[in-house]
C-alpha cells in the first residue's frame, strides 16, 4: 500500500520535471547569439567586441563547428550561424521543414594552409601529392622529396567546415582519408600538434598559420592574402554568416560589418582576406 502511494508520488514528480524541461528558452531582444565554425570564430569575436562597443548590444559567440552552427540556426538557438562551408542540401531541406529560411552572407575569404614542422625541408607540394598523403598512398616523407621519416597526417573531425573544405578542394570523388590519419578538434589543436611533431602535416585556416609552423606552397604558390584574393592559390574558400531570412535590424548591422572600413581592418588583422 505504502509503496504504491510512493510510486504514484514518483510518477507525479517525474511529470512535473518533464513539464519544466519542455518549456522553451527564447532569445531576448537586445542580444545577438552566434554559433558555428571555429575558423570564422576569431572574426566573429572581434566583430562582437566592436559591435558591443558601438551599439551597446550584447553578443555571444560560440565556436562549435560549422555543422553545429547550422544545427543551431535550424533549431532557432542562434541568430547567426558562422560557417566555413555552404549549407548542405540536407541541412537546407531540414531548415525548410522547421520553417527556417537560411540566407548566406559572405564574410571573408580564407585560404587553407598546408602546414608542416619548421624543420621539415619540404617546401612545395602539388595537390596530387597532398591527396596522395591523405589517402595513404604516400607514407614516408622521402617519397615526396623529404627526409626518410613516416608521415604523421592530421585531419579535423567530421563536423568541421575546414575538414569539408579540405575534402572538397583536395580529394576526388570516392577518395577516403586514410584511417591512420589523426584527428584533432580545432585549428589551434592541429597547429599545436604540427608545431611539436617534426614529421607531421596538417591543414588550418590561413589566419592560423603562424610562426611556429611552416606553410608549404601548393602547386608552386605560397598561401597569402593576395594569392587567395586573386585566386592563384588553389586551396581557398569563402566564409559565411547564415541568417534566418533576409537580415534586419541588429542582425543586418552585424553581417554588414565586413563591408565597413573597421570590419575590413578586423578581417585583415585576424589573418583573413577581405571579400568586399
Amino acid at each position, binding site marked *: 500500500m505504502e509503496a504504491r502511494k510512493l510510486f504514484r508520488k514518483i510518477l507525479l514528480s517525474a511529470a512535473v520535471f518533464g513539464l519544466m524541461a519542455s518549456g522553451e528558452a527564447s532569445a531576448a531582444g537586445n542580444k545577438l547569439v552566434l554559433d558555428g565554425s571555429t575558423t570564422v570564430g576569431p572574426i566573429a569575436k572581434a566583430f562582437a567586441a566592436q559591435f558591443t562597443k558601438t551599439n551597446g548590444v550584447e553578443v555571444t559567440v560560440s565556436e562549435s563547428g560549422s555543422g553545429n552552427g547550422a*544545427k543551431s540556426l535550424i533549431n532557432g538557438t542562434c541568430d547567426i550561424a558562422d560557417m566555413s562551408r555552404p549549407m548542405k542540401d540536407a541541412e537546407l531541406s531540414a531548415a525548410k521543414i522547421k520553417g527556417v529560411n537560411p540566407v548566406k552572407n559572405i564574410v571573408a575569404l580564407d585560404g587553407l594552409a598546408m602546414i608542416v614542422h619548421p624543420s621539415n625541408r619540404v617546401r612545395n607540394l602539388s595537390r596530387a601529392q597532398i591527396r596522395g598523403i591523405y589517402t595513404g598512398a604516400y607514407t614516408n616523407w622521402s617519397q615526396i622529396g623529404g627526409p626518410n621519416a613516416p608521415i604523421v597526417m592530421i585531419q579535423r573531425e567530421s563536423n568541421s567546415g575546414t575538414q569539408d573544405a579540405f575534402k572538397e578542394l583536395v580529394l576526388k570523388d570516392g577518395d577516403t582519408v586514410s584511417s591512420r590519419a589523426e*584527428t584533432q578538434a580545432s585549428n589551434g589543436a592541429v597547429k599545436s600538434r604540427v608545431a611539436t611533431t617534426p614529421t607531421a602535416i596538417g591543414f588550418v585556416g590561413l589566419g592560423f598559420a603562424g610562426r611556429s609552423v611552416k606553410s608549404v606552397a601548393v602547386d608552386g604558390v605560397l598561401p597569402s592574402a593576395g594569392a587567395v584574393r586573386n585566386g592563384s592559390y588553389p586551396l581557398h574558400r569563402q566564409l559565411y554568416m547564415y541568417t534566418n531570412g533576409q537580415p534586419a535590424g541588429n542582425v543586418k548591422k552585424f553581417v554588414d560589418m565586413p563591408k565597413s572600413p573597421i570590419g575590413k581592418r578586423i578581417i585583415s588583422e585576424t589573418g583573413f582576406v577581405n571579400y568586399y
Partner: protein
Amino acid sequence: MQASSLQNCNVMNGDGNATEGRSSAFVVSARKRKLQQITRTAGESTLFLIAAFVAVIVLFIFYFVARDAVPFFEIRGFREFFTDTRWYPADEPPVFGALSIIYGSLMVTVGSALIAIPMGVAAAICLSDVLPFSVRQYVKPVIEMLAAIPSVAFGFFALVIFAPMLQNHGGSILMWSWWIMATPLILLMIVVGAELVSSRIEDDRRRKVAQRVLLVVMGALALLILILVGFRLRSIEIMTGTNALNVSIILSFMALPTIVSVAEDALQAVGRDLREGSYALGATRAETIIKTILPAASSGILAGVILGIMRALGETMVVWMASGNSAHIPEPWYNYLDSVRTLTATIAGDMGEADQVTGSARFHVLFAMGLLLLVISFVSNFISERIVVRQRKILSGQ
C-alpha cells in the same frame, strides 16, 4: 561474518528503538506524537523519493540510449558495426565499422589498468600498513586530490606537454621507466629464487655456497637483460606522441585516486584483531600483509579496481585530446605507440554533425556506441558485485 553480524546488529537496534518509543516513560501528548509521526513519514518518503529518483535516472538513460540505438541496427544490421574496421561516417557511401574503435577503447583501458592496478594497490598497502598514521593523514588527501583535477587539464597536459616529450625523448623515457620498474622486481625475484632453489640442499655450508653462486649468476644474467632491453627500448623512436601509451598513462593517473582510496579503506576495514592475530602466530609484516590482510580485503580492493577501470573506460576529454583519434587497429596489434580512437571520443567528436539533419544512421550509430559502453560497464559492475559477494561468503566460512 563481519558484514552479516553488523546487519544483525542494525536490525536489533531498529527493533530496540521502536519498542523503546512505544513504551517510553515520557508523557507525550497525542497531538505531538501525531506531528512526530507525520514528520517522520514525510522525511522518510522524501529520502525514498530522492533515492528512487536516482534509480529512475539510470533506467531512463538506459531506455533513451537504447531507443535511439535500436534504429541503427535496424538500418545497418549488426555485422558491419562489430566486424568492420573502417569508420567513414561522413563519406558517400558511409561505412560504420566500429571494430577498430571498440579495440581502441579496450586497448587504452587495458593499458591504464596494467599501470594503475599494481601502483594503486601497492600505494594502498603502503598507506594502510607501512606508513605511520601521522604521515598517512597527509598523504592520502594529496592522492585524493588527483581526482579533483578536471579531465580537460589532464588532456591539455597530455596533448601539449606529454606528447611532444614522448616524441623528443620517447626512447629514453621508455628505457628509464623500464629500469625503474624492473630493477626492484628482478632483484626481489633473484633473492627469493636463490633462497628457494638452495633450500633443497641439506648441508649448511654447501647451501650457503650454492646460494652465493646462484645470486651472482642470476644477478649477472638479470643485469644483462636489464641493460639489453633498456638499450633496445631507447632505440625506439616514437613517431607520434598522441598515442595509446600516452593516454594509458594519463588515464591510469586518473584512475589511481579511486583505486587507492577504495582499496585503502578496504585494507583498513580488515581491522586490528586479524592483524594482531597474525602477528601473534609469528608472522612477519610481509606475511601478514600478503597472507592475511590482502585476502581479507580482496573484495573491497576489487571494487576499487573495477571503479578505477570504469573511470578509464568512460573518460572522454583526455582521450579525445590526446589519443590521436585515428580509427584503425595498430600494427602490430599490441603497438601502444600508435594512435587509436575510442568509443567515448567518437561520440564526443562526431555528435556535432550527427543529427537528423545529416542522415539517421550516422546519428543512431553514436547511440549504439553509447549503449555498448553502458552494457560493458553494467556487465563488469555485475560481475564484480558477484565476486565481492562470493568472496565475502568464502571469508565468512559459509
